[in-house]
């Protein structure tokens, strides 16, 4: 029994162990890698992807998908930089976030009311969103006020603002998913929308809200990103949907709904960033970046999927108590 427990422990924590191996490997190659400062860096850089991926987790949990998050980021950034720049931050940031929510609400409305498949809905809002933002910006780089940029560099109680934002979004999402009726109903909808309807859950409301949440997260992620990169060029947020979905799925959330959570998503986002960071720290040939990153993601998912099947076998309740 004890041997089995150890095995279970190892298996359950494989991703963490893998992560440690990775840290050790990069640590050996660069003495600057294993420092607190660097880890803070990694988390800062993972923050915007991580935040958006948290929103994406909600969408994937109900079996949907949102390809428009990158476009949403760009719409929010260009409106903030062009039209809200004279407002004080406590006003302009909430307004920008509301705009992200509105974008998400459009997705949600089309998906729930017009009943268009999520993939196509968000594919088309991706195009429309970018079009609108480009119209506002006239293709030009959108700059931001010094206050916003200062916010990007600021630290509170020794913790950089991006990490605060990341932590806050994570905490809110975690609590929502695990501690509220909405969160639990969301898992039910993801597992079986028809059954959820029969159980008296307002499925439409949940689906709609989920796209709104994804919109809000995209907006917040966009704000974090722009406060760091300082300008939004016409490619701001372009093709962000891929790393975002990758981080979410790497974190163990199923594309088919009902399974996963935001803790894994955070882990997925940080893992990808750790590898990128490690490669820069070891001054690797830039051509090798995608090769190394993809191999590591591959190994992580491979280990995770084989682990899941072994775990299932080990944890499966024996159908009968065997006689000695």
């Amino acid at each position, binding site marked *: 029994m004890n041997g089995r427990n150890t095995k279970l422990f190892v298996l359950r924590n494989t991703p963490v162990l893998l992560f440690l191996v990775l840290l050790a490997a990069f640590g050996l190659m660069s003495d600057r890698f294993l420092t607190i400062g660097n880890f803070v860096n990694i988390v800062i850089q993972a923050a915007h992807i991580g935040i958006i991926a948290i929103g994406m987790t909600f969408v994937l949990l109900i079996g949907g998908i949102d390809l428009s998050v990158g476009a949403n980021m760009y719409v929010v950034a260009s409106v903030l930089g062009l039209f809200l720049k004279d407002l004080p931050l406590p006003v302009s940031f909430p307004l920008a976030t509301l705009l992200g929510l509105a974008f998400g609400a459009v997705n949600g409305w089309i998906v729930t009311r017009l009943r268009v498949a999520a993939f196509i809905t968000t594919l088309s809002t991706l195009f429309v969103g970018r079009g609108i933002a480009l119209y506002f910006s006239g293709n030009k780089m959108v700059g931001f006020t010094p206050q916003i940029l200062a916010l990007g560099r600021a630290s509170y109680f020794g913790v950089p603002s991006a990490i605060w934002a990341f932590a806050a979004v994570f905490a809110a999402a975690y609590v929502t998913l695990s*501690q*509220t*009726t909405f969160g639990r109903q969301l898992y*039910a909808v993801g597992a079986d929308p028809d059954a959820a309807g*029969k*159980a008296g859950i307002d499925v439409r409301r949940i689906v709609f809200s989920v796209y709104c949440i994804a919109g809000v997260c995209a907006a917040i992620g966009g704000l974090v990103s722009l406060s760091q990169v300082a300008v939004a060029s016409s490619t701001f947020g372009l093709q962000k949907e891929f790393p975002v979905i990758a981080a979410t799925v790497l974190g163990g959330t199923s594309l088919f709904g009902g399974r996963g959570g935001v803790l894994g998503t955070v882990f997925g986002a940080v893992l990808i960033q750790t590898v990128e960071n490690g490669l820069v720290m070891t001054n690797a040939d830039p051509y090798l970046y995608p090769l190394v990153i993809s191999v590591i993601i591959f190994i992580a998912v491979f280990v995770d999927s084989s682990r899941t099947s072994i775990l299932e076998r080990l944890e499966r309740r024996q159908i*009968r108590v065997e006689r000695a």
Partner: protein
Amino acid sequence: MSAQAAPAPFFSAHGLCKSFFGVQVLHDMGFSLHPGQVLGLVGENGSGKSTTMNILGGVLPMDAGRMTIDGTEYRPRNPREAEAHGIAFIHQELNLFRNLSVAENLFIAGFPKKLRGLPFIDRARVRARTQELLAAVDLDVAPATLVSRLSQGERQLVEIAKALGANARIVIFDEPTTSLTTRETDRLFDIIGRLRRQGIAIIYISHILGDVLRLCDDILVLRDGHLVGGAPKSQMTVERMITLMVGRTIEQMFPPRDPPIELGEPVLEVRGLSQRGMVKDIGFSLRAGEVLGISGLMGAGRSELARILFGIDPCESGEVRIGGSAVPKLSPAACMAQGMAFLTEDRRAEGLMMEASIADNVALASLPRFGRNWARFIERTRLGDEVARVSSAVRIVAPDQRRTLAKNLSGGNQQKVVIGKWLLREPRVFMLDEPTRGIDVGAKYEVYKIINQLAADGAGVLVISSEIEELTGMCDRILVMAQGEIRAEFARAEFDREAILRAAMWHGSKEPA
């Protein structure tokens, strides 16, 4: 709530009518319920039982009619409103979320909150209330257990606990025992008894007429959307119910089976088959023309045995010979190559392609046989003819074999589609796991006839069933399994319900739910 002192009805329905696409499926249906009453509802599939209950449960709106609860009009627009009026509907396909815990399933429609106005779930209260409700249905699992880890019977109890949690006054059971073991069924009936003593009215829908008779105070019989009979239990018999249901008399539940005078060669031989935690040292043989039954409680390893034999689940040791030749590595393809067929117990998950037509479903297992030349182009005419032949042989009732999707068929017709799929292969060995689960009397009779015909044509048939009557009615020989082993064998002459049950309960105290 006062007990059954004065059995005055608190619920009544009059003149319920419903049409789909211009076809009236329910005519002038009406009944009433008083606290603590158990009302049985029987009828063939499509007779209007489910429609009635869906109207009651707020799933469908009624076209005409009137329902009242406590004298006030009741007209639910969705399941939520029905629930708010104290009506709980326990569907045949349980409405539980496997990825959530027992406690979460109980409260999914609305969790108790920590503070008014804040959305946070009061976990402690959920846990306490869950324990209370689980105790009320005698289910001994932790509230945090995931539903995916419960047995079918346990899940049923969770559904009942859910109804109790919603303060239901009427609980509707739609075919609750189809996937329960005998013991679980007994336990369910105990619980139902307890509910009625609390003054809760029960509507019980089932194809198992014996159960209905045993359990219900009053029984209503539906046919083609009309209420064709209703009487207290004392005035009903199983025969009368059947006669009312089908509109004619059926002499027997089972078609006459003349046991073959001389059995053929063994078509399936199993020796020393073992798999840890599943089955142990199984050995038996099945001969051509024989119908062999396997009885046992749920979890006794019956389905597991069949799944191992068909190569779906792995096995550690043992020898299997199909049609005289040894199959060294079991797999569905290898077994099929030797002429074996297998009807799984879960036809939705493992038998049918719901979104595909009848023809596509029937053809599925036989496709390579109709492949022509190297590219294996399908000979469509020949396949079409064969599919049509089999479909009419098993009497699938549907407007169009090519257009009608499996999901739009009744349970009985769905089962016939799966059987047809295997018959198209003309199997030498046919294993059927719960072949009549959830299908109506008429369809059952037809399935039995198909089985008889198969055996008469020289195939070996292996039937797994939880209904002992079904096995004794159908089989030439019955094996009884318990705890993964074969415990007893009965020849037709020795069939005895009591003895079979006793063998199945061998060390029965250890049966895990």
